[in-house]
C-alpha cells in the first residue's frame, strides 16, 4: 500500500486536474457572455510574464517581479518597524501590571480600526503614497505582535522567574536569558499572524494609493480588462503570502521548545 503522503499528493494532483479541466470546459462551452480566460490561456500568460518578470517599460508597464518586489519591500519595512516597537512595548506590558492597565484602553480602541481608515490621515501627514502604505502596514501589524508578546511575557512560568531570581540575574539578564526564550514561541506566533495580515492589507493599500506594487498592478490590469493578468496576479499574491508564512513558520520552529 502507498504511504499516506503519497496518496494525499496523488489526490491533490487529481483535484487540480479535475478543477482545471472543468474550468477549461466551461470557458470553451458554446454560448454568449463574458468569459474569464481558461487555464490554457492563463498558463501561456504566466510563462510570458515569468520569463521577463523584471522588465520596466515606463510607469504603467512593469514586470510582475518588480511589482511584487515593491509590495514585499513595503511589507517588510512597515512590519520591521512594527516589530521594533511592538516587541519592546509588549515586554513592558507583560512584565508590569501597571503598564498593562495603563495602555490597555488605547490598545482596545486602536486595535479594531481597519488599517485602511488610517490612509487619508497618513497621506495628509506623510505626503508620500509609498510611505503611507508602509505606515498602514506598520499600524496593522503592530497589534498581534504587541498582544502576543505581552501575553507570552506575562505567562512565563513562575518557576523560570524563580530560577532567575535564585541565580541573582539582573532585570536585563532575566529579560534576555529567561523571559525572552520562554516567551519566544508566543512572540513568533504573533509575528506570524502579523505578516499574514500585512500581506492582506498591502494589496488593498496599493489599490487605494496606486503607483506601484502588486495591489496597484491588479487594479491597473482590471482597468485594462486584462483578466489573464488579473488572475495570474491573484495566484502570485497567494504564492508570496504562502512563502512569507513559511519563513515565519521556520523561525518559529527554531525557538520552539518542548515543556
Amino acid at each position, binding site marked *: 500500500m502507498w504511504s499516506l503522503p503519497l496518496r494525499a499528493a496523488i489526490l491533490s494532483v487529481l483535484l487540480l486536474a479535475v478543477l482545471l479541466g472543468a474550468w477549461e470546459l466551461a470557458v470553451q462551452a458554446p454560448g454568449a457572455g463574458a468569459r474569464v480566460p481558461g487555464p490554457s490561456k492563463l498558463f501561456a500568460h504566466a510563462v510570458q510574464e515569468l520569463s521577463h518578470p523584471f522588465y520596466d517599460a515606463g510607469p504603467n508597464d512593469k514586470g510582475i517581479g518588480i511589482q511584487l518586489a515593491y509590495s514585499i519591500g513595503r511589507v517588510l519595512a512597515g512590519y520591521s518597524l512594527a516589530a521594533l516597537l511592538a516587541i519592546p512595548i509588549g515586554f513592558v506590558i507583560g512584565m508590569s501590571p501597571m503598564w498593562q492597565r495603563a495602555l490597555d484602553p488605547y490598545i482596545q480602541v486602536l486595535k479594531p480600526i481597519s488599517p485602511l481608515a488610517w490612509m487619508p490621515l497618513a497621506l495628509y501627514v506623510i505626503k508620500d503614497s509609498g510611505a503611507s502604505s508602509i505606515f498602514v502596514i506598520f499600524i496593522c501589524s503592530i497589534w498581534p505582535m504587541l498582544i502576543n508578546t505581552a501575553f507570552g511575557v506575562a505567562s512565563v512560568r513562575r*518557576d*523560570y522567574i*524563580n*530560577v532567575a*531570581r*535564585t*541565580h*541573582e*540575574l539582573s532585570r536585563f*539578564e532575566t529579560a534576555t*536569558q*529567561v523571559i525572552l*526564550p*520562554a516567551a*519566544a514561541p508566543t512572540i513568533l506566533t504573533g509575528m506570524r499572524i502579523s505578516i499574514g495580515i500585512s500581506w492582506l492589507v498591502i494589496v488593498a493599500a496599493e489599490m487605494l494609493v496606486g503607483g506601484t506594487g502588486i495591489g496597484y498592478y491588479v487594479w491597473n490590469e482590471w482597468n485594462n480588462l486584462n483578466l489573464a493578468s488579473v488572475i495570474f496576479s491573484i495566484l502570485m499574491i497567494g504564492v508570496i503570502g504562502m512563502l512569507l508564512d513559511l519563513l515565519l513558520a521556520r523561525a518559529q520552529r527554531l*525557538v520552539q*521548545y*518542548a*515543556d
Partner: protein
Amino acid sequence: MTDSFLKVENLARRYPGSKDGEALTVFDQVNFAIRKGEFVCIIGHSGCGKSTILNVLAGLDQASDGAVIMDGREVAGPSLDRGVIFQNHSLLPWKSALKNITFAVQARWPQWSKMQVLEHARRYLGLVGLKGAEDRKPAQLSGGMRQRVGIARAFAIQPKLLLMDEPFGALDALTRGMIQEELIRIWEQTHQTVFMITHDVDEAILLADRVLLMTNGPQARVAESVLIDLPRPRERSTIIHQPGYYAIRNHLVDFLVRRSKELAGGARGPGAEASAHPREVNPIALAAGRQPVDRVQAN
C-alpha cells in the same frame, strides 16, 4: 546552639482575613537552627507551611513576622548563597542539560573563562551520572534524569545552603531510591548544608542528621527536632538493619499520625514557654531509657 550557621527566629506567616473574619495564621513561632554541614529534613502534613518556610529561606517569599539569619546576616532576598531544588525540577526547557548548568555556573562566577565554566559544569553533570546526556534538552530526559540535572545545577554553584522542596516527590519509587543514594554519595563528598522538605519518613532517616517535625496547620510550629543518630555512610539496603532504626521510625510515624494533630492549632502542653523552641529528641536514647521521658502532654 551558638555555632548555628542558619537561625530561624519566631517566623510566622499570616493572611489577613476577609472583612470580619479572623486572620489566618499558617504558622507562627517557628524556631530552629542549622549547623554548617548539617543535613536537616522537615516533615509535616500538607498545609502546615513547609514550602513557605523554604521559600522564605530562599528569599523568594516573605514572612509576616520573624527573621532568618544566615552566616550572621539577615536573609532579605534570593541569593546564589542559597541554592534551591524545586519539586518540579524547573530546568529551562530550551537549554540542554549542560547549558542549564553552565547558565548557573556563569551566574555564580561571572569572571570565569568559558573553559572553566564548561569543565566545572561537566564535572557536576558527571557527578550525577549524566555523562553523555549533555546535549539533551529536558524534554528528552526522563523524570529522574531531569531531577538529577537539577541536583547537579544546585550543587555546582556550591551554595552555602541548599534548599530542597520535595525533590523526589514526582519520581517513581525505584528512581527515587537510586537518586537518594546518589544524593548521599554527593553529600558525603561535599558536606553541603542542606534543608530539605520531604513527606517520606524513610527518606528523611536515610538522609538527615536531624529531622524537624511540624504540627498541623493552622498555627503550625516546629514541635520537635529529632536526632538521627545512625552511623554514616548510610545505605538504603543496610540502614533498616541498624539498631535504633525502628526506634526512630516509630517515633516519627507516631508524631505524624497522632501527635501532629494533638499539638495542632497552637495547643500548648505543660511547659508552654519552652515549646516556642522545638524539643530535642533522640529516639534511640529514649528507647534505651537514657533520656528522660518528658513527652509533651497534649491538653
